[in-house]
């Protein structure tokens, strides 16, 4: 399956979305475009025409500030009109910077206060087990988010409950607001930590869709424990000017000119 065209579209729509208000969380949106592309192109059992369908697979963006990347993905897959993306963060919008399940069709959980989304995901995975509906629950956490103690409370419980319907992606872009993650508070080795907490752990190139696809496919075969897929990524990936900014791209201005240049770089 060729995911590349979809990934590029997600990046273009994400930047158009952020540029519509002039500023936003570019870096951490761009680093997860591939995993969103692979999940919604192939793995998520969902129906854009019936976004609240019982028993569907669900995704929690625990790093809730990556809302625009999810909105771009949902619009691209037909949950709502792409024009909606241009309302980001305008008063009254259904697309706030951080994900809000009460406002946006297709958003499965509200998140934004880091560490909470993954716990909510554990609740969803427990709910699916109780319902015996076979749904799979995916959560994307930031690497910096791993500094939140609640992440490890959630990890411990999900392993204890043997939630093999539960997959955590760590967006390991190695940066956070104040600097490089290794300089702020080092969280390495991420893979060893998740393994120690009882997860099946895989590490993949987070910008290689086929590698992500294979990891998700493998995660579905794991029995008796949850899976963690560490995505080795580059913050701001896909547009050179943002990549070069380094951790300053966490939240940054996107002017009309910058958008135009970015869209050119992201042409098919």
């Amino acid at each position: 399956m060729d995911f590349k065209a979809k990934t590029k579209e997600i990046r273009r729509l994400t930047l158009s979305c952020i540029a519509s208000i002039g500023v936003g969380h570019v870096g951490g949106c761009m680093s997860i475009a591939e995993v969103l592309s692979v999940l919604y192109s192939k793995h998520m059992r969902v129906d854009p025409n019936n976004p609240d369908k019982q028993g569907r697979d669900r995704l929690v963006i625990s790093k809730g500030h990556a809302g625009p990347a999810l909105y771009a993905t949902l619009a691209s897959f037909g949950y709502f009109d792409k024009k909606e993306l241009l309302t980001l963060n305008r008063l009254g919008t259904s697309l706030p910077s951080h994900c809000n399940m009460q406002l946006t069709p297709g958003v499965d959980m509200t998140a934004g206060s880091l560490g909470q989304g993954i716990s909510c995901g554990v609740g969803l995975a427990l709910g699916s087990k109780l319902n015996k509906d076979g749904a799979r629950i995916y959560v994307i956490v930031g690497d910096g988010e791993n500094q939140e103690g609640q992440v490890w409370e959630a990890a411990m419980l999900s392993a204890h409950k043997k939630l093999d319907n539960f997959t955590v992606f760590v967006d390991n872009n190695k940066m956070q607001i104040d600097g490089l993650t290794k300089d702020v508070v080092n969280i390495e080795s991420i893979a060893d930590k998740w393994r120690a907490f009882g997860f099946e752990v895989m590490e993949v190139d987070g910008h290689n869709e086929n590698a992500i696809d294979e990891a998700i496919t493998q995660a579905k075969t794991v029995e008796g424990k949850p899976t963690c897929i560490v995505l080795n990524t580059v913050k701001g990936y896909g547009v050179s000017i943002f990549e070069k900014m380094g951790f300053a791209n966490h939240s940054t201005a996107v002017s009309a000119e910058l958008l135009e240049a970015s869209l050119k770089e992201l042409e098919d």
Partner: protein
Amino acid sequence: MEVRKAFASTLQNLMEKNEKILMLDADLAKAGGTFNLRQVFPDRAIDCGIAESNMVSVAAGLSAYGYIPFVSTFAPFLARRTFDQIAVSVVYAGQNVKLIGMDPGIAAELNGGTHMSFEDIAAMRALSNMVVFEPVDATQMALALPQIIDYNGPVYIRMFRKETPDVFNRPDYKFDLFKADTIKEGKDISIFVSGLLTADTVAAAEILAKEGIDAEVINIHTIKPIDQKAVLDSAKKTGRVLTVENHNKFGGLFGAVSELLSEKLPTKCAYVAIEDKLGVVGKLAELKEHYGLTTQDIVKKAKSVF
């Protein structure tokens, strides 16, 4: 009867009828009386371990999946430690989670200041759309539970868990989650009381009666949304108000009643409450003395508004 026993046995009956109800604990199921539910519902009574923040957000996820989860721990570990999880995962996310804060205020007794929540009503009351309920006794707890489950939204249940004097254990008692209970009618002063100090307040009203003061005693079991009509009608009738609560004087029942009266019916209002102090260890009777929450304190404060 112990309030926790009434809670657990009523919940068990309700869980038998409604498979969506779940019970989540954080290593305090034995203290909370819910431990034995695990034998009846091994999948639906869940120990989340000593991780309250995670428990609250997990409950929010379960609610998003269509379940009605109860979470239980000591009041400060909910209202203080998991305030952000309640605010974001539950309230802001629009989830239907029922929160049980045990051993509120001085009820923490020998566990002392670390376990004493003098601010939980204030914190929970400030959250948009949060219902704040404080049962007086086992009867009220048992009657409230079905209504709390029928109500679609977050409810904070401030639960004294042990043996407590029966105030409402009578055959004709009808409970409405959103209506205050008049325990004794009177014409000279309105005493609004919540939770633990209700029996003491009834005793104080009897002393006041002997001294010629006819006090009206109204139990405000639901502090938010407060029964405005009950408060205003009574205050209008008597022209004098006293509030009695096991909580800091800021932001609790005194706050809720004063806010209402200042807006709609300015009335002289006194309080029996914690005087902005920290918690200490002690037994219940000693702590009532220590913080000025005895029957005699209620009598004295009632007289102060005449």
